[in-house]
């Protein structure tokens, strides 16, 4: 008896773990190690380069006292809530309407969904000029004879944040539509027919039966949209550049400018930690529930 087959069997036992190990190691280092390092930096007085003089909670105190950060927080609250609500409403409405045996569904569906294939930079570029009063929508309306038409949101510090909502809804509402449509197509028609025989109106049917059955789709949409909203960086950069002034500052743009252009790495790190904690508060329970179900 030689030990060779023994070694082979043992190798076969270990092989799966060996194959998975590099990915897991990379994740531990580049994700969790990096998170730990950024958390560590957020407690240091790092400026342009990382330093290790610990300053306690000072960065967090400074952060919450900064007007720019407060603007960013107000903006993300406005943006995220409007974005999620409008996307869900538009997506649900389109899905329900498309589900009415619509002729040309095969043409309409890809039209609603194609913006999702674009980069936020492209979306931002397109909408930036479309909303520009000098060459875009306002000018077109004037040329078409509606002289009093005015749409200057993108130049208006109080309204510019809503232009980001418009562009973001344009980009992702079709995707939410696709999610709801898949949910609708998965509902058993017998339930609906039975309810109809019992004399339920269309409105009641949707309100009482269909929409409650779509709960998983609502949850998925909420999770994906909120995570997209908090990460939104490119769209702001391309559409308003954070302006006019600093009117459309968001946590993501704030983090970038404080860390890399203003050389306040400690404060930048602490803002990143806040962003992570917000997303984790939404994602961790969701992922936990999803993975537990699967077992």
């Amino acid at each position, binding site marked *: 008896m030689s030990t060779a087959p023994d070694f082979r069997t043992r190798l076969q036992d270990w092989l*799966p*773990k060996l194959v998975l190990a590099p990915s897991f190691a990379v*994740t531990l280092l580049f994700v969790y190690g990096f998170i730990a390092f*950024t958390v560590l930096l957020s407690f240091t007085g790092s400026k342009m380069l990382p330093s290790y003089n610990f300053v306690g909670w000072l960065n967090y105190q400074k952060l919450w006292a900064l007007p720019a950060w407060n603007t960013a927080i107000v903006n993300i609250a406005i943006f995220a809530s409007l974005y999620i609500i409008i996307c869900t409403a538009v997506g649900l409405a389109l899905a329900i309407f498309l589900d009415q045996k619509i002729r040309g569904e095969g043409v309409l569906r890809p039209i609603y969904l194609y913006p999702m294939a674009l980069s*936020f*930079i492209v979306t931002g570029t*397109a909408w930036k000029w*479309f909303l520009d009063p000098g060459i875009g929508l306002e000018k077109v309306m004037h040329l078409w004879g509606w002289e009093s038409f005015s749409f200057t949101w993108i130049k208006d510090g109080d309204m510019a944040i809503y232009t980001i909502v418009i562009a973001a809804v344009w980009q992702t509402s079709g995707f939410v539509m696709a999610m709801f449509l898949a949910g609708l197509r998965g509902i058993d028609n017998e339930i609906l027919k039975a309810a109809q025989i019992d004399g339920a109106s269309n409105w009641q049917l949707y309100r009482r039966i269909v929409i409650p059955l779509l709960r998983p789709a609502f949850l998925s949409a909420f999770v994906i949209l909120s995570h997209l909203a908090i*990460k939104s960086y490119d769209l702001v950069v391309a559409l308003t550049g954070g302006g006019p002034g600093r009117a459309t500052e968001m946590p993501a743009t704030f983090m970038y400018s404080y860390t890399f252009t203003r050389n306040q790495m400690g404060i930048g790190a602490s803002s990143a930690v806040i962003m992570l904690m917000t997303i984790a508060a939404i994602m961790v329970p969701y992922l936990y529930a999803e993975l537990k179900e*699967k077992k």
Partner: protein
Amino acid sequence: MAAVTQDTAVSMGRIARVFIYLLLLLFALFYLLPLYVMGINSVKPLAEITGGNMMALPQVWTLDPWRSAWSTAQIGVEPTGLKPYFLNSILMVVPAVAISTIVGALNGYVLTKWRFRGDTWVFGLMLFSCFIPFQIVLIPMAMVLGKLGLAGTVPGLVLVHVVYGIGFTTLYFRNYYAAFPTELVRAAQIDGAGFFQIFWRILLPVSGPIAVVSVIWQFTNIWNDFLFGASFGGTSQPMTVALNNLVQSSTGVKEYNVHFAGAILAALPTLFVYFVAGRYFVRGLMAGSVKG
């Protein structure tokens, strides 16, 4: 999306149907408008944009803006056009997509057919990494890339995209392979087939659809990425960053037509993929909500 449209149980009146069609068409217009505006204004001379109507068809058709955007427009300080950046994006996207898809397939295989204690935790930790705000890793990533001598290079960007892409690709393949009968794998094992043999002979041949989903999703994501490109691109910036530099440049006359042509150039590869393989694109988006 269901391939077979079922009978809709709920039916509506005639007026309601007219209203629905109108609304659906209105939304189609809303989604198409920016593309239309970009398209027609990219083939107009600049004077027609600044002096005319954004919605009107060109009076003089010209491809000059496209030529300019591709090869002569000022990007940053160099009048190179977008061509070199397009190339950067391709050089970055192809290896990043290939590596992350292959690694994801192997991971999914191990996580479903060679389960071990704690495998759900391993997967959970990898999965969460898809959803972190990347701001949290920007600073250490910049330091590590610097140390490795990869800062500002295409290989550096490939590394970044592979590292933060394997969570998603693993998710795709794991959910897909979970539905594949494990008995077949066990039977092959009893017949003496090894780990890689089983993967190669039994699982890989049925992996076509999910591989397409993974490739499309990774391609779209990596091509469209801006944050990593802007942070770590250096002299090897991808297309999105170059487009932004072109559009935001504050010097000289704003050549809107060139900007539009550039934006369409940046969008073409992903749009092409979307229109050729839209069905898989939708599946990838759905799988992104964790449920396979």
